[in-house]
């Protein structure tokens, strides 16, 4: 009898299905999470992980199937009901107000009128108990991404949940911060709580998870003990075939100097933006230089001044192919042979509501003027030529889509990213700057994108990759620099860099360079 009891899962789904139009985003999903286990949900982007979790958290209504809580069927109609049932969730993208304090942000998420002092007290207690140090009176804007994530976790813990869902929690953390998080998760498990851990990082899953459920194309393709598997057997379940090994072989000697950044400084444009300080970097033909760093340390600001979306006062601060481009706009830089891929896919790299062909015109209307436009000053768009190029890109990058020319927003993150990267690769840019190339992208698409970037460098282009993903950084970079609070460390050969050293640089400790340490000391 006792045995029987422990086998009743905390949460179980039977035949859970969600249909969007003709797409079965989740198809007949059976999942069982036992009490006191860390359960991994693995899958490519577009595999249906987010849809499944949204149904469990009451954000989406299932089209079919049932959800059982402690063996009894329940219907979860809203996040409020999910919290009342005992499910807490930490989303991948935080929903915090930067101008408010930690305690105020927590209070906003709670129902009813709990005095803010009580919340502060409670939050402080919980954060100490679980090893998530947090000052309730600090303003969110001043906190690092790791600290922001702690707010979300504490916020979820305040509801005393029995099941906590974490969506790609380590994608924004330094290795050290991630280790801290794992300790917290172990503590939660020891208390008998369950964790549903969504990730695409196989090593992590093997390290901390007791069981794993793998999704592909909306269906369960495997349920296993990740410790009994190898990374490649897990990856096979995820993508349905071997993931291509990235090969950096063939990156020859660096050639001509293509990008020179010289004492580049830029003031911050808003109270929450980061100022760039004295950045120096040069990139030669045939090189992939990766810029590592924790999110929010000036990556997007650096991307914007490199792309020309923001211009800097000193034209000489950035030279591309020998030309001073600091005062040039993005169009002129593209005409010099540059390609750019920003971090945010929706509403920056692509207009979500517009079809792929229109999104192709978006970045290439001037560089491919002769092919895509006719009628001289009238600027008529050649729909045939654009459609042909769009088909070519989709074929080369293996972009999977429904219909011939769907809206960009209807593609899964990985497929849209393949299109956006392919859009630039298609014109063989001499200089390519990419911000977070595989952020939120599944393993299959990520390896394809990384290989494409390496191949571009092999063919004699200079490639700059800004990335928070250290696995990616080590996989593709010939040299690595680290950005921290708007400072960029000197780029060092990837062969001599270690994770520990990057972790230290991410924290602002530049050995041998006195000023960062002095500044860090000054700040405390």
């Amino acid at each position, binding site marked *: 009898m006792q045995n029987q009891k422990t086998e009743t899962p905390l949460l179980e789904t039977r035949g859970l299905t969600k249909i969007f139009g003709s797409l079965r985003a989740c198809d007949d999903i059976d999942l069982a999470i036992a009490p006191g286990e860390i359960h991994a949900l693995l899958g490519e982007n577009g595999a249906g992980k987010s849809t499944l979790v949204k149904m469990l958290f009451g954000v989406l209504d299932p089209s079919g199937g049932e959800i059982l809580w402690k063996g009894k069927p329940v219907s979860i109609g809203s996040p409020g009901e999910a919290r009342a049932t005992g499910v807490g969730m930490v989303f991948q993208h935080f929903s915090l107000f930067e101008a408010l304090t930690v305690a105020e942000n927590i209070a906003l998420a709670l129902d009813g009128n709990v005095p803010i002092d009580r919340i502060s007290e409670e939050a402080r207690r919980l954060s100490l108990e679980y090893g998530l140090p947090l000052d309730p009176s600090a303003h969110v804007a001043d906190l690092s991404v790791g600290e922001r994530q702690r707010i979300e976790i504490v916020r979820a813990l305040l509801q005393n949940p029995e099941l906590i869902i974490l969506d790609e929690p380590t994608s924004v953390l330094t290795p050290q911060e991630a280790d801290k998080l794992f300790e917290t998760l172990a503590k939660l498990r020891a208390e008998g709580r369950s964790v549903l851990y969504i990730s695409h990082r196989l090593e992590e899953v093997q390290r901390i998870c007791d069981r794993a459920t793998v999704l592909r194309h909306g269906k369960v393709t495997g349920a296993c003990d990740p410790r009994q598997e190898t990374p490649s057997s897990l990856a096979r379940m995820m993508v349905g075939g071997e993931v291509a090994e990235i090969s950096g072989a063939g990156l020859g000697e660096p050639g001509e100097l293509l990008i020179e950044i010289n004492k580049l400084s830029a003031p911050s444009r808003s109270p929450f933006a980061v100022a760039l300080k004295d950045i120096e970097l040069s990139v030669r033909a045939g090189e992939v230089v990766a810029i590592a760093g924790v999110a929010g340390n000036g990556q997007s600001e650096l991307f914007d001044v490199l792309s020309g979306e923001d211009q800097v006062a000193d034209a000489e601060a950035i030279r591309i192919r020998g030309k001073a481009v600091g005062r040039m706009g993005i169009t002129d830089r593209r005409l010099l042979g540059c390609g750019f891929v920003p971090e945010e896919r929706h*509403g920056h790299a692509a207009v979500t509501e517009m079809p792929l062909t229109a999104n192709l015109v978006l970045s290439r209307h001037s560089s491919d003027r002769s092919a895509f436009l006719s009628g001289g000053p009238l600027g008529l768009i050649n729909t045939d030529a654009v459609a042909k190029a769009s088909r070519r890109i989709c074929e080369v990058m293996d972009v999977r889509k429904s219909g011939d020319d769907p809206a960009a927003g209807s593609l899964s993150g990985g497929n849209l990213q393949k299109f956006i990267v392919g859009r630039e690769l298609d014109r063989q840019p001499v200089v390519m700057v990419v911000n977070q190339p595989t952020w939120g992208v599944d393993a299959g698409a990520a390896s394809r994108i990384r290989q494409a970037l390496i191949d571009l460098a092999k063919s004699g282009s200079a490639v700059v990759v800004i990335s928070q993903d250290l696995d990616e950084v080590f996989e593709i970079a010939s040299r690595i620099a680290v950005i921290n609070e708007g400072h960029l460390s000197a780029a060092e050969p990837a062969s001599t860099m270690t994770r520990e050293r990057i972790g230290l640089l991410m924290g602002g400790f530049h050995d041998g360079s006195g000023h960062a340490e002095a500044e860090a000391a000054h700040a405390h």
Partner: protein
Amino acid sequence: MRIELKKRENMSSLFSILSPFIALGLTLIAGVILFVSLGKDPVAALYSFFIEPLTEVWSLHELAIKAAPLILIAVGLSVCYRSNNWNIGAEGQFIIGAMAGSILPVVFHGWESPLMLPLMMIFGMIGGALYAAIPAFLKARLNTNEILTSLMLVYIAQLLLDWTVRGPWRNPEGFNFPETRNFADNAVLPRIIETGKTHWGFGFALIAAIVLWFVMRRMLKGFEISVLGQSARAGRFAGFSDKKMVYFAFLVSGALAGLAGISEVSGAIGQLRPVISPGYGFTAIIVAFLGRLNPLGIVAAGLILALTYLGGEAAQISIGITDKVTRLFQGLLLFFVLGCDTLIHYRIRVIFGAAHKGSAA
């Protein structure tokens, strides 16, 4: 209890085409309720409101005359609204355009030249564009809200016109009536066909609609307008300037409103008066949305809204109700158009009961 709008995962493309027609149907139903509660025969009332004006040739000409400014203005507004610039001040740009275009026939009365009409039209467009440049400048430079500034400028334009026709431009032979001189024959827009009163303003409207349809459909400029309207950030990534687009959109719509103003004064009224528009600049906002911000749709929508003006006059005469009912129908139509559009994109969810108490409390 709480009512929420939730974004639909899939919106029906069939219904987004049908939406203006559903809105029209709902407006008619509301009209029936309205007339019944006024104690009028709804069938007769709706007949005299919506059908009667279509049964006679002269009133078809009236329809075209009233539709012309609506279409011209709304086509310009569609460029603004598609690029996310909310110009609400077309009425003011219409008035200033009419005044600028009237400089030649009023101040230089008696000047005989074949250039008279073309110059009047150009002056009208420049006047409207310059007046629209004010909210554009304020938005691009100082980040003010263009809805407020453009709307406030309408009242300034109305009072400026009122003062001008009572003061400096009053007709010296006009027995002190607040009117300017009647325009000389060479300053009057000719009719399109000899048999009716429809003047070239309607021609301008059709040309503007077709040209802008082509721009939006085929040209990079049209693409730029939609991209900046949907995402300014993506627009910047494409190398388009959102500041320049503010000026472009306001100048185009101001110029077209100004052209509508001088066409109306020159083609239909023949002089400046204290009031030269029954709210064309505001009604055109309804036209733009009813026409789905598509220049060709706007032509159809302009004719429908013009019909409400004629119907209001007809209903006043034949069934004796106030012509305020025109504004009422226009308001209902806008309400239903926006309502239908909202419900195509969102669905209503009613949540009963208080939210669950958090266990931390």
